[in-house]
């Protein structure tokens, strides 16, 4: 990779605008937004099983500006971005995993994504955005806790080295050398987050069919939602 590819700093100044400021991010009204709440409220889980194709964080990508918000924009995945847990595992392979393995992968991924998102707070350009980021992180935290709750209710152990209440912070995310590379990182973080949310929604729907909803529901409600 070229020089610019070893950037590792989180830089999403925008992931949070998603659900809170539809007026600021007019293009964004999609499923990914509601998914964190969807897990907390089982009937809404299905919300993410809808159409795919457009970024759930499209509004945030708008914030990044062109060409990041263009549909066919596909920049090279840089070094730091490669550390973001990717949901681009082969579909058949993913389906072949056990519920436990998939839930654990979800849990690990969101824990890690949350870490990166939390690292963005100080870098968000405007106070509005920081406020939105905080709200989005809270939602995502809820999702992580919910997954832990579901795993617990199904008798699965939590992945080692993670805790439901607070995923570990990433070890020293170095700052990007420039703003453009930071935006590239943000882009990939958002994209992965979106892919994970879609995948999770499908997983939870599948799980809902297999597991008596009452068990999951009760358990989720017991988590305080």
């Amino acid at each position, binding site marked *: 990779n070229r020089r610019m590819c070893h950037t590792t700093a989180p830089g999403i100044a925008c992931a949070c605008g998603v659900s809170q400021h539809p007026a600021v991010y007019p293009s964004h009204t999609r499923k990914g937004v509601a998914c964190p709440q969807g897990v907390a409220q089982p009937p809404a889980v299905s919300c993410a099983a809808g159409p795919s194709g457009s970024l759930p964080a499209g509004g945030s990508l708008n914030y990044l*500006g062109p060409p990041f918000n263009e549909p066919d924009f596909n920049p*090279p995945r840089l070094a730091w971005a490669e550390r973001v847990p990717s949901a681009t595992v082969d579909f058949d392979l993913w389906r072949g995993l056990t519920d436990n393995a998939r839930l654990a992968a979800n849990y690990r991924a969101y824990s890690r994504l949350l870490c990166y998102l939390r690292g963005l707070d100080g870098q968000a350009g405007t*106070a509005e955005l920081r406020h939105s980021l905080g709200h989005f992180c809270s939602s995502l935290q809820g999702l992580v806790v919910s997954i832990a709750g579901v795993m617990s209710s199904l008798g699965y152990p939590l992945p080692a080295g993670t805790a439901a209440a607070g995923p570990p912070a990433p070890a020293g995310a170095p700052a990007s050398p420039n*703003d*453009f590379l930071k935006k590239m990182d943000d882009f990939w973080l958002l994209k992965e987050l979106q892919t994970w949310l879609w995948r999770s929604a499908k997983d939870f729907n599948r799980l809902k069919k297999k597991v008596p909803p009452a068990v999951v529901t009760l358990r989720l409600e017991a988590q305080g939602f």
Partner: protein
Amino acid sequence: MWKNSSLCCVLALAILCLTSLICSQEIGSPGEPQNLKCIMHNLHKMICTWDVSSKGRYGQTDFCYTTREKRVEIPVSESSITVSITTNSIYGAAFGTKKFAIHKKDISFVPLTPHILSLTPDFSTSTLNLKWSDNGSVFPYGLDAFWQIEILRKETMEKVTQVTYHSKLTHENTILSWNWTSDMPLECTSHYAKIRCYINVTDFVGHKDWSDWSPVEKVLGKDTEPNGSGVFPQDTVVAVGSDVTICCVHAEDQQIKRMTYGPEIYPLIHLSSRSSAIRVINASASDTSGTNVVCTLSQDEMDGTVLFVGYAPDTPQNLSCETSNFLIIKCTWKPGRPSGLYGKRRTKYSLLERISGKNVSCEVNEMNRERVCGFPVLADQKTYSFTLGVSNPIGQTESSLLVDLTQRVHPKTPEKLTVSGNSSTNVHLHWYINGSFTEIRLLCQIEISSGHSEQKLHNVSMPGGKFSTYTAQLNALHPYTKYQFRVRCSAADHFWRWSDWSRVEEHTTLEAPPARGPDVWRERSPSGRSLKIFWKPLTLSEANGKIVSHEVSCYLLDTLLEYKEVTEPSNSTEIKLGKNDCVISIVAKNHAGSSPPSKITSVELPSDNVKTERAVALGNGIYISWSSYPNVTCGYIVKWCHSSGSEPCSVDWQKFPSNTTDAVMKSALFRPGVRYNFSLYGCKSSGYQLLKNITGYMKELPPKRAPNFTVEETSSDSILVKWEDIPVEDCQGFLEGYRLSFAKGEKDALKPRLSESGNPELKVKNITDLTKKSLRILDLQGKTSYQLDLQAYTAGGVSPPNSLYVVTKEDCKIKDTFYPEIPNPENSKALQFQKNICEGNKTLKTLEMNPCTPNSVEVVETQSAAPKIEDTEMMSPAADTTVPEDGSDSENENHVVVSYCPPIIEEEISNPSMDEPVGSSQVVYIDIQSMYQPQIKAEEEPEIDLVTTAGYKPQMQLPISALKIESRSATEEESDKTAGYRPQANTNAWNMDTPDSPGSVESSNENASFGSPCSINSRQFLIPPKDDEDSPKPTNTGWSFTHFFQNKPND
């Protein structure tokens, strides 16, 4: 400088040297030197060079100095000198010698080539720094030096700029420095610099020239580095409107596909094989996250940078500083135009206090439109000189303010407001203000609100305390009142701003005894044996609490005759006094005590000749007046009664001082059109006396209805009408007269009201003598139908009319017609038509009966419009011009009088609601003849020539002129049904609704009348049955065919 002593010494040496040289020179020999040129690089020596013309001969040239070069430095002489140059062979043989005369003007001055000490790039600012020495030590002080600098770019060393830099030589070697900011990032490609100089030696008479260019210094671009790449500049902030060059440096094996700035693709400017640029002109402000510049390369790689385009900070506006607690000074300002830069590039503020030298940086909330910065209050410092510094990457500005802090106090909102008090008029308020105000006095404002009175503000000044609770007492409050209090404070001596209001605290004062006794009146019962006592409830402000009862006592001198306690809400009571009199005392009581007593005597002094007068309506009241009565010493009382429906009227009264002689009585209960009766009593020392009665209206209205009236008598030229009184309730004002309008006319529901008909023969009689209850109308025409309208009027207007239709008697013998009973009417003796007054009639007469007073009655109801005031002339002014549309009232037309009918006038007046002034009843008196040409409503009457129908034809030509076509078919059907023998009349006009012919005629066709032989007393058939009377139908009521046969006389 040539006069310099040391220089003179040098010149003397030179001359000496040259003199010795001259002795040794050899002139005219071969290989002699040629083209001697002398230049100076400094002012001490000149360098002379020459050529040797000998071909292939090389030797040594003798000068002063022996040199193997064709160049020699010799001291500068003061004046022209002659130089002899001898060229010797290496063996010492002289080839040639030549003499040159060197004049000062032949010597050139060319400074030494300057040398660049350094060329340093600052990539972040795209600035090059050039340093060189001016070599000034060899020149006298103060010479002007000019430095020409050239900047070159790219491998091809294209000249970018050339500038001339000026300096003064200081006779010392000085290092000069010059900065140049490139319009292109220095990383984009290599940049070069070179320099030369020109020294303006002012006294030098020879040729002065620029030095040679220095060797080129360079700063290499990233495109020269083996691994150099990137898009430049990186993360740069520029002002809106700037022109910006952005380049993309890439590897040798890559090509740039495109470069975009924001959403737009820009044309590439080639810089080198590894670098290209775009040029953005007049850049506009970026979005929040900056404007992306993306360089898309071959092999699906890309690179980019973010450009932040914004504004320099605006000068802060409305800078204002104040303290709310003497701990922190809060300065606020408006930031003005947003910079468009965020995050670490945002506008930053710092507050410098110049007197103390203390500086604080301000953390401002960008969400807030107004910026705020806190500065600590410093001990023993009253005056503060603030400078607010504002800066962002594009620029900086500042704003200043000098404040005396004691004049900028904006106290915090008072907290913990409590109200205490155990009194009906006093309370204590306590509140706390968070702050130290020991240096000032506070002015606090207490807002006092209650439902009963206007909001009041009470100011209280007090010394400021240190985080203190403050107390204020409020007096003169009203008892038993729920108050709302809130408080705010400011500095007392130098008002700056009020604090916000504290929260509202409620408090209800305690009760106090009622402030006064109730207003009392009394009335003897009609029997005189009991006394009814009335009192008015006290107002809230008088009651001072909740009134629970009234104590009523009756004293004869000091003897208590009767005592009653009347509990609320009753406001009257009755005392059995018999024939006695007493003084009544009434006391209102609440929980706190009793009011002072109100007293009134029961004595009613006898009155003689009490008159009743009329009051005048005045505005929304009723104006009454009276003359001053000498013995009235304790005022007047006007008493009246409000009646509401069936309930007994409620007594009301109003008291006036003795000197009053008039009043406008007002009450929310007064209604227009309602008569009020007032009684004026005088208060005398011995009792009350009824002085007079006054009756009046708040506003007079037109009477609700006209009087009922009847025709008493009819002759061939007169009609006597008689009317009844209108009940007072229907008058709605003082009745002023009656208006009787009459004109020829027959009943027609569609006709307008007589007074509005425009009838030219309309006559109006105005009866102002209200005692008159009848009127004879004279000079009428015989055998003519008249319409009479009677109206009553008040000052408020004219009532709706009551209408009658009357046909005057014939003044000759009249034949009447009837339908023959026999199939062939021509054979009937009854059909011996006579020539008579009716000859002119076009219609056929039927059966002649015995002559009698022709009359018949048809009663109809019509709706009439609201009346208008008529003139009182007997003849309508329009009489000459307007011709009645309905010719039926013409004398020579269709009035065929049935002679067998008694001269009885019947009327039926449907009683419209008294509340419907537009409605009236009309009583129509017609003769039988008119039945043949019934006053049918247009829509009911077919336009049909019945003569043309088959079978037996009616032996009358019906002059129906106002029939409507749409009714025709129905009528024709009707005609068909009755084909064959038919009564010789317009049967369509008859009501055939009999048991024998059910529903044969539409029920609305009730105007038709039919006469039958009958006793002269047998008029009852003319009266519609009760059922019909009660019919809700507003349409005309006539007689059914069967009435002729079924009704029996009942009188």
